[in-house]
């Protein structure tokens, strides 16, 4: 590989006005998406302040302190409104629309803060009760009936849930779930970041990568200069540079979208004190079942892991597109086929018999890996909750991609060029 040539190959994609235009359009759309959904960003500061005042971990001691401070605030509120109260909730429930003007703007801000704090306190007090009520055997059976899995597949799933229940106990022992985070069922921040925002990033990056890879790989054939290029001393070895350039371009495009989108996201939403909180935090509980990771992961580590998954998938998709382009040689057909391949991989487990382990094996693919990002590294993610799911998929598909690339390079060496 010649780094100079690789760079020149990259420039073919990076200087293409359409690609640059799309890149900017996509990033602008992501920024719009984030800003458009940020109306509650000020409320989120409460969680940060809780960590600041009472530490990241929720212990009986810190919770007591929190409760006392809240009582002090409540007394202040009682002075403002001039009546006895047991909670802010009681006050807000008994409020008429007309009463709104009785209190000043700053009073309302105080009341609002108090309401939020009370909500967090209530949630913190409920943690133990809610977690002891979780019966993983029942969850396993529910998953099995819901997904209509039977036979061998059901056995595999039950085994994995048994494994997971050990981890679940360990997590409760470590009290990983007792750490402050944004209230999940109020703001759905996990879902917003890892589902909505990341889904956009992934689809956008994927489209750009398929297009840029096809462009770089087929450039000479499309522009009818292949007879000159592949007749030079470098000749067909140029293909290796093109592979390098495709992957490099994929990395650059992904980095651009990720960096801009995520930096906007974290400027809009304040995570300052929460990076160390566990992803399995009870506050991160959004739907029927809390998020429980297979490992003790903090939010920061989880985000890093997810970013790594995105990079791996994107680079592998670039490699796969390269291999297919060399074999098919028609840019248009290749792009369409890659798009179909991505969606088809999502559907394939659904076509498998529900009684066989094929259901899971076919699920170990890049599309599911990358679309399953909100539940990555987690045991609480339905059918693909396996502990080895992420790294197995990554390793298997890296091998497949490398084999396909080597094969296509070999094949290209002997191909008729005319």
């Amino acid at each position, binding site marked *: 590989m010649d780094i100079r040539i690789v760079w020149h190959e990259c420039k073919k*994609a990076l200087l*293409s006005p*359409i*690609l640059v*235009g*799309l890149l900017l*359009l996509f990033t602008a759309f992501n920024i719009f998406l984030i800003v458009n959904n940020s109306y509650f960003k000020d409320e989120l500061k409460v969680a940060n302040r809780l960590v600041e005042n009472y530490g990241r971990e929720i212990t009986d001691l810190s919770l007591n302190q929190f409760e006392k401070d809240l009582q002090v605030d409540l007394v202040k509120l009682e002075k403002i409104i001039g009546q006895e109260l047991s909670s802010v909730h009681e006050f807000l429930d008994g409020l008429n629309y007309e009463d709104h003007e009785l209190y000043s703007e700053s009073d309302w801000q105080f009341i609002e803060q108090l309401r939020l704090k009370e909500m967090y306190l209530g949630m913190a007090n409920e943690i133990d009760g809610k977690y002891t009520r979780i019966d993983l055997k029942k969850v396993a059976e529910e998953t099995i009936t819901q997904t209509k899995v039977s036979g061998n597949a059901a056995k595999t799933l039950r085994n994995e849930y048994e494994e997971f229940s050990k981890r679940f106990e360990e997590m409760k022992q470590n009290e990983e779930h007792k750490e402050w985070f944004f209230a999940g069922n109020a703001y759905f921040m996990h879902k917003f970041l890892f589902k909505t925002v990341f889904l956009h990033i992934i689809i956008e990056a994927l*489209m750009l990568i398929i*297009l*840029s890879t*096809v*462009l770089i790989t*087929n450039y000479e054939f*499309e*522009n*009818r200069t292949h007879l000159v290029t592949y007749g030079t001393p470098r000749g067909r070895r140029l293909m290796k540079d093109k592979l390098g350039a495709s992957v490099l371009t994929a990395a650059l495009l992904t980095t651009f979208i990720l960096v801009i989108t995520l930096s906007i996201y974290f400027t809009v939403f304040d995570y300052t004190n929460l990076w160390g909180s566990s992803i399995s935090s009870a506050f991160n509980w959004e739907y029927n079942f809390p998020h429980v990771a297979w490992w003790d992961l903090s939010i920061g580590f989880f985000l890093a892991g997810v970013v790594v998954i995105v990079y791996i998938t994107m680079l592998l998709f670039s490699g796969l597109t390269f291999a297919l382009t060399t074999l098919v040689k028609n*840019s*248009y*057909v290749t*792009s*369409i*086929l890659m798009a*179909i391949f991505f*969606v*088809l991989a*999502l*559907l394939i487990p*659904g076509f498998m018999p529900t009684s066989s382990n094929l259901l899971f094996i076919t699920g170990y693919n890049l599309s599911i890996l990358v679309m399953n990002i909100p539940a990555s590294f987690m045991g609480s993610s339905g059918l693909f909750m396996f502990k080895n799911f992420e790294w197995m998929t990554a390793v298997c598909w890296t091998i497949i991609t490398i084999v396909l690339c080597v094969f296509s390079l070999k094949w290209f060496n002997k191909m008729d060029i005319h």
Partner: protein
Amino acid sequence: MRILWNELKKILTWKMMFLLVLVNSVVFFLRIEFYIEYFPNGSGIYSYDIGVEMIDKYGTQMDDEEFLDFKEVYDLQVKEADQYLQPLKGFVDAGIDSYEKFNTYDWGSSSEEVYQLRNNVYHEDKVDTFWELQERERLIEFYEMKEVLPGFDNAKQEKRYKELIAAEKYGVYPSVAIENFREFITNVAIAILFSVVLVISPMILRDRSRQLLALQYTSKKGRNLYKTKILAGLVATFIVITSLLTVYFSIYSLNKTSMYFDIGMNTFIGNESWYDPTFYQYIWLTVAAIYVVGFVFGLLAMSFSSIVPNTMALIGIQIPFIIGMLIFGMRPLIKYFILIWNPQWLAPTAYNTMVVVSVLFINYLWKREKKRDIVS
């Protein structure tokens, strides 16, 4: 004519047909199959059955007299439910010996056992009577509320709503069939949009990048060939849309909704519209809308195909238009395009603008093509 035929063969190649089938199968399994296989979905079956019964008995509209009959059927069924409950010891012990008590019972604070019994009624025994009763209650409520005005965004909506009430076009028939059709047709529109763009996009670029233009434009037919290509593209668009619609509608016929075809749009619950086509006419309206969308995107694809330098740009430039249509266009222009919750002018204006813009664009490109320096 011969040239047109040959151009058409260049567009509809076997390779393209194969891709077309592949794309449509993916969209079908991802978005459409669900609305065929699971119709009526869950308790929707009761809604569907009662709807069919209403059409059989009362025709396409229900008047007050017929409503009394409907209530009679309801009362009969309540008696049936009473008879079912009375011998059940668990219920009687809890003081639930009639359907009325069953219905008004405070389930929120009931004991675990009684709650379990109730679950059994609905889920284990699958007592159809209870599900049907729920649905009938819902329909009765809608009938009784038929003249109550909901909140409106603007005065025009309110005026139309009052007009409908004055004309006694009340939304009282179950809407499972039409809701299902709406989901189905929107996804069909998506599949057809993809298909048209897929088939049409490469046609003009292909000749250009193979440097055939120098040969083509110096022949006897000359630059007029461009027009023939456009015509061939339009014919291909028509063939693609028509054949896909035929396939998808034959699949749709499995849903067996033809009993509902004579009911007016406004007679379905929650379907107040600016116009009053029957369900059957509404189907044809959406088909027309799909043709317009298909032709517009076909023309746009040809236009882009005439100006972009390479395949990457050809796909890249169309991505924002297609995604824009999917995100912002599908709901107001296909899914809900005659409902009063969309402004009345929106769909016609949008369609007209789209047609005008795409025709003007291709016209401009033809003018350009006549004078263009094809050597450089």
